[in-house]
């Protein structure tokens, strides 16, 4: 049996627990970016920007993933609908869409999907440059999550608001501070999907390279080559992008073009992989002596690719012997 004296004590304990919980909630994670942004506005960033023509696919069930993806793709000229994407990115058992599949789904529609830095400024710069951004938010709390995809289409630094296509709301205005809280909980996950040849303005070199290599995997070779050219225009010294261009040209049947790219890459980067691929393309072109020279040069710098270069040299010698 409960004694009456217990009750106030219990009540007090409950109350202090509630206060502690509330304090923990309030103190966990501050919206530092939004405060900073409004104190000192970044240089060259317009005060406001809004991509008003971004299409809207309302959703009030579990399909915010397909809806956000269709919104971002249709906005950049890769027209599609959420219905067409449900089978590609929605996971019925989880009643939602996973981040990995959102990126893969964008690629399947012919877009290069690039992760961008997790800053409010990056989101703003992208929309100012005309690129809508897909973001993952946790609208709830870390221990009571409500994961949600939305598309950032603009912002207003004067009113301190982010503008989104979000679920059933065509033009959601959400305070920068609240948006930052919901976005922090997804570790500020965001990506921009663009047709091959274009890349998000805020993308880092490594993220862009990663996105392009991922795109090449399932894209038609000519599209992959176009995408790599776009990357090389911004980062001409990137060896991975150069190799990607060479490989895509080769896969699209442009042997002369591929050879030229591999030759240039081998020379500027001293890259064993470039020598190896150049040698094999030269072999395909029937230029055996040059092929052997390239493979031999590659072997000198082969490092971990030694086995590959030895095999290539073997292939060349076999082909030369049968001639």
């Amino acid at each position, binding site marked *: 049996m409960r004694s009456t004296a217990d009750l106030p004590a219990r009540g007090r304990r409950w109350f202090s627990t509630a206060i502690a919980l*509330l304090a923990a*909630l*309030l103190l966990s994670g501050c919206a530092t970016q939004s405060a900073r942004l409004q104190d000192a506005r970044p240089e060259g960033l317009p005060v406001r920007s809004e991509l008003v023509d971004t299409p809207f696919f309302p959703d009030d*069930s579990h399909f915010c*993933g397909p809806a956000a993806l269709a919104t971002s793709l249709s906005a950049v000229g890769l027209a599609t609908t959420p219905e067409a994407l449900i*089978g*590609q990115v*929605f*996971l*019925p*058992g*989880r*009643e*939602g*869409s*996973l*981040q*990995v*599949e959102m*990126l893969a789904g964008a690629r399947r529609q012919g877009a290069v999907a690039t992760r961008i830095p997790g800053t409010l400024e990056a989101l703003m710069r992208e929309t100012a440059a005309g690129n809508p951004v897909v973001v*993952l*938010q*946790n*609208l*709830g*709390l870390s221990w*009571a*999550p*409500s*994961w*949600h995809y939305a598309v950032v289409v603009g912002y207003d630094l004067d009113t301190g608001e982010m503008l989104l296509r979000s*679920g*059933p709301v065509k033009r959601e205005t*959400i*305070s920068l*501070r*609240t*948006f930052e*809280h*919901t976005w922090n909980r997804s570790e500020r996950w965001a990506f921009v999907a663009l047709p091959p040849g274009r890349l998000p303005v805020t993308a880092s070199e490594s993220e862009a390279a*990663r996105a392009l*290599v*991922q795109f090449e995997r399932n894209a038609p070779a000519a599209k992959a080559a176009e995408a790599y050219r776009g990357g090389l225009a911004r980062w001409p010294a990137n*060896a*991975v992008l150069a*190799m*990607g261009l060479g*490989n895509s040209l*080769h*896969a699209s049947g442009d042997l002369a073009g591929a050879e030229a790219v591999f030759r240039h890459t081998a020379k500027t980067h001293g890259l064993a*992989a470039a020598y*190896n*691929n150049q040698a*094999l393309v030269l072999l395909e072109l029937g230029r055996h002596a040059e092929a052997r020279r390239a493979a031999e040069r590659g072997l000198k710098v082969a*490092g*971990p690719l030694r*086995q*590959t270069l030895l095999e*290539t040299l073997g*292939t060349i010698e076999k082909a030369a012997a049968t001639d």
Partner: protein
Amino acid sequence: MNRFQQFLAVILSMSLINATILVPVAHAGMVTTQEVATVVATGQAESGQARLAAALARDEVRTEMERQGVDPAMAIERIAALTDEEAARLADQIDTAPAGGIIGAILLVFFVLLLTDILGLTKVFPFTRSVR
């Protein structure tokens, strides 16, 4: 695992290796861009072991997707769209990774979320307006 299951697993993984590794390498000997990226990043060539692990991860994800209600034919296409790295990550986290799509919260935390919504820390309910 009994003997038969082990045997089956080996056969299945062999068929997977055939399907996912040998086919894309149409031009034997060419170093793929993915391999170049791996060498540049790690200083090491891709090992056969890593490829085997990736193939097994794909199979695992496919099984899991079907269990989660994805049509088998669709699941195969979805697996094909993933990179090795993505497939490996999904194999680990398909049950736990954030799945964007859930609007609404359970009743137990309704009031907490209502309060945090009003404080502008969360945005669960469309009818709330943050105080600031």
